[in-house]
């Protein structure tokens, strides 16, 4: 399965790209994160503290154990600071 993966704010800066296509067999967000962490040091660093991260699946906030079934767009970012 190919996912569009997006990064925002300091996560985008640490990983170095705003978005990428990711081929994955992961069943959940947590599984996808494990695969990304294993890729390169910059991913391992960016995803080192999940409490400092949020995830959205197809533009809806989700949990890290949410299934990726049918999902096309995954976004990772720090807690929001709008307003």
């Amino acid at each position, binding site marked *: 399965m190919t996912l569009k993966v*997006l990064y*925002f*704010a*300091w996560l*985008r800066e640490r990983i170095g790209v705003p978005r990428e296509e990711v081929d994955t067999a992961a069943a959940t967000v947590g599984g996808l994160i494990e695969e990304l962490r294993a890729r390169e040091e910059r991913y391992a660093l960016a995803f080192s503290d999940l409490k400092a991260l949020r995830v*959205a699946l197809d*533009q*809806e*906030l989700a949990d890290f154990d949410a299934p990726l079934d049918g999902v096309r767009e995954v*976004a990772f*970012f*720090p*807690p*929001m*600071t*709008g*307003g």
Partner: protein
Amino acid sequence: MAVRVQQEPFDYGAECAAFAKAASRAGAGAVVTFCGVVRDLPGGGMQRMEIEHYPGMTERALGDIEAQARARWALDAVAIIHRHGPMAPGEMIMMVATGSAHRADAFAAAEFLMDYLKSRAPFWKKEIGAQGAEWVAAKEDDERALDRW
């Protein structure tokens, strides 16, 4: 009314006047508006603020927050405007406005919109000062503020 996400500055006075007029025509007797302004850094030296957002999700999240407010309170009008991109100290970042027959509903809905928007809409603030740039950290208070609703 509506949700607007834009890079350009908006005219707060003109928006307030237009909102109050529209809300009044829709039956509101009580209108609340809130705006957030870029503050200078402690000790001064803020050069600019930059707001990043998630195009697409931003509009969905704000529309969803607006719908929740309309479902919970008797509102005659609601508006949300939020900017992204660079802005200088003193510039308006965003505003929400609510109109209702009753002031308690207008106030509660405006606070609800702000609390949800702060922690559930995909915006991230970066402060650029003389000492460099820093992403604003989310406040625990802001997360806790959601518990009351």
